[in-house]
């Protein structure tokens, strides 16, 4: 059951996966080997829970002013200023085809970096960091089931719950104005 692990280490810059100290998995069994584990951050789009591999998360910030960019891509909410760098912010609700929602006190922006593209994800809430064993993952079996399913790179099981793991690369490719040839850049 290596599927999702491969997806994680190959497709993302897994450089700094050790930001959060994890004390065992959520249900208290804390005597496992951590090295095999994949850490994910839980986020909510509307009320639904998704995971995002932590290796691509740079930081999480509160909602800040976002400048509307006329005639930009549909799912791009606008641009924001992260300490002097201007970066696009993606509205995940819109991307996943969830109904319109507004800012709440729990709204956050996840700053993610993949292949040197930095982007902000607007999410309705952040939950917690989980440390998942490779056997908790299953490769994507959700292809072609409604809008947004193409951005789910795999499924994680947490007990009885099934949670989609977002594929940052696919999201960036879909919102980019022009085709970004990531494969080519990886070579270079």
């Amino acid at each position, binding site marked *: 059951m290596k599927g999702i692990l491969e997806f994680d280490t190959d497709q993302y810059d897994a450089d700094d996966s050790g930001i959060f100290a994890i004390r065992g998995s959520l249900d208290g069994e804390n005597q496992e080997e951590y090295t095999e584990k994949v850490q994910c951050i839980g986020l909510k789009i509307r009320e639904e829970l998704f995971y995002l591999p932590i290796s691509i998360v740079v930081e999480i910030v509160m909602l800040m*002013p*976002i*400048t509307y960019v*006329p005639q930009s891509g549909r799912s791009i909410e606008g641009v924001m*200023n992260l300490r002097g760098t201007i970066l696009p912010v993606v509205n995940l609700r819109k991307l996943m085809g969830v109904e319109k929602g507004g800012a709440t006190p729990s709204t956050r922006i996840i700053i993610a970096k993949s292949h040197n*593209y930095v982007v902000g994800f607007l999410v309705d809430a952040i939950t917690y960091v989980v440390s998942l064993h490779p056997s908790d993952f299953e490769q994507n079996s959700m292809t072609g089931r409604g809008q947004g399913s193409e951005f789910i790179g795999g499924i994680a099981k947490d007990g009885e719950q099934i949670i989609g793991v977002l594929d940052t690369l696919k999201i960036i490719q879909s919102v980019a104005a022009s085709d970004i040839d990531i494969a080519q850049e990886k070579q270079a």
Partner: protein
Amino acid sequence: MDSPGKQVSEGDDEHMMLLEQLAGGDSGNDAVEAPASLTAPSTEAEMEDGVEEDEAVEEIEEFGQSEFGSDPEMIKDFLVNGDDLMENLDEQILKLEESPNDIEIINEIFRSAHTLKGAAGMFGYRAIERIMHRMENYFDQIAKGKQQVTGDATDVILQAMDILRVLIDAVRQGKPSGEKTAPIVRVLNQLCAGKLKAGAVKKKVSGAKSEDKAPEKAGAEAVKKTAQSTTIRVDLQRLDALVNLVGELVIDRTRFSNIEEQLRTGSSVALVAGNMSETVQLFGRHMNEVQDIIMKVRMVPIGNAFNKFNRVVRDLSKSLEKEIDLIIEGEQTELDKTIVEQIGDPLIHLVRNAVDHGIEMPEVRTSAGKSARGTIVLSARQEGNQIMINIEDDGKGMDQEVIRQKGIERGLISEDDQLSERDVFNLIFEPGFSTAAAVTNISGRGVGMDVVKKEISKLKGVIEIQSKLGAGSTITIQLPLTLAIVQSLLVRANEDIFAIPLSSVIESLRIQPDEIQMVGDAEVIKRRDRVLPLLYLSDALDLGKKNDHVWYRYEKESKKSDRRKEMGSERLFVVVVGTADRSFGLVVDSLLNQQEMVIKSMGDIMGDINCVAGGAILGNGEVVLVLDIGELEQQFRIRSRVAAV
């Protein structure tokens, strides 16, 4: 062919031979024979021109062994110095042709050539060393008065320079170019021996360069290739001034900490406020100076881009058999480094056009009552925050009627369009437009002027043509001094703030809604007896869609904007933008202030947004979009065209 060939390939033996010959005059039969017997393999080399890396007997490896060759830092130094020396050589060689007896110039050439040869030798770049060595010999003879500078000799030297450029470029790429150096070395040998026959030059050297690489092309390529360097030379005085200012800033910092301490210890508000305002002012002044100097550090004289044109014009006019003087003015004008580097290509195109299409053949000129020699003036000067570059020729000029006809033919304009002189000349910048009756290998393929315009607009510049039939054309390029920092006017439209680069703002007006008149479907106002078309910024950018688009709003505390909206509702603010005779009014909700800002790219993901040049960060941390007035104007024209239908 074994003994003479081997001798030639070994630089120093050959040098001895030359010395011998110099001592003995023409009687040194060996030396005279050697080059002559070598002409046979030369044709062989020509035949096998398609084969790269040909291991002919005379060819030597480009890169030899050297302990320095493996150090990238050293190689970088070599390249930077090499580029400088080559540039200097080019310039001096051309000067020498004009004044062949100036010993100063010869010495300068000699020094540069010697330095480059030495450096190349140290790094083991044997091919460079070998050519340079022969050139040095030649100039040595000139210095000693044993040879005279001739046009043909200069041609050979310039050809050698081209090959040297290819070789130096190969060093930059880190792999041998496969360029053949033996033929040029042979010709140089003949030159040194004083045996160069007139007319033989082109044929001999063509073994080194394939036919389609005519000299004019090689010259242009050379300019293109040197146009990308990542280092910059800074005047030490400027750097010292910067160091001084940093010292001042450190002092300012301590002043701020003093104020902080005063605040903590509860000093009187008046005292702290006084200190504070003084310090802020001082800090502001220092900051401005730092900004000034940093900007100046990036500035280089435009002469770097201009001087290469001597060569281009010389080669071109020779091959076209025209007589042309190139006059360069204002080469000391300073411009941002990136602009100087990127302006080279469009300028080459324009200069080539001037030589090819502008200046007539000598006989035509004399029969038209002009002097046989044509003149091209390339000049640069600063006007406020702009740099003006002029390319002026006294050639045949452009025929408005011909351009008009071509425009109609291409369907760019219709038969009954009334066009101003300016509009007619602007047609030249449309893609695929060419008036040249015959396509020459220099210009006239109809690709180019649109590319030139695109490149210039990329540099936030404006290009214009003025021309008088029979008297010549003038092309004016207007460029901003720097791309990094832009003075902008902040405006508000539909609750969003936008920045308009001040360089394209002519004025701003406040009008009453009833001043707007309708012409057809277009809204216009009258301004000083001229009609000014209006464009609503919120319409142009479709700002009405914002409410659908933006879901997450950051709540701001103040409701000031509402009040302002009510206040200003009966008045409209119009920012007049564009160029002096083609302007339009941009209607916005309010004018805010004027500010210097740094334009930043919004990244690859955002790509090119129509009418937006980039983003900039305001003092409060918010991002504003900087408008691209050029694109807005285009959009505006499309709109008015649609409205007219």
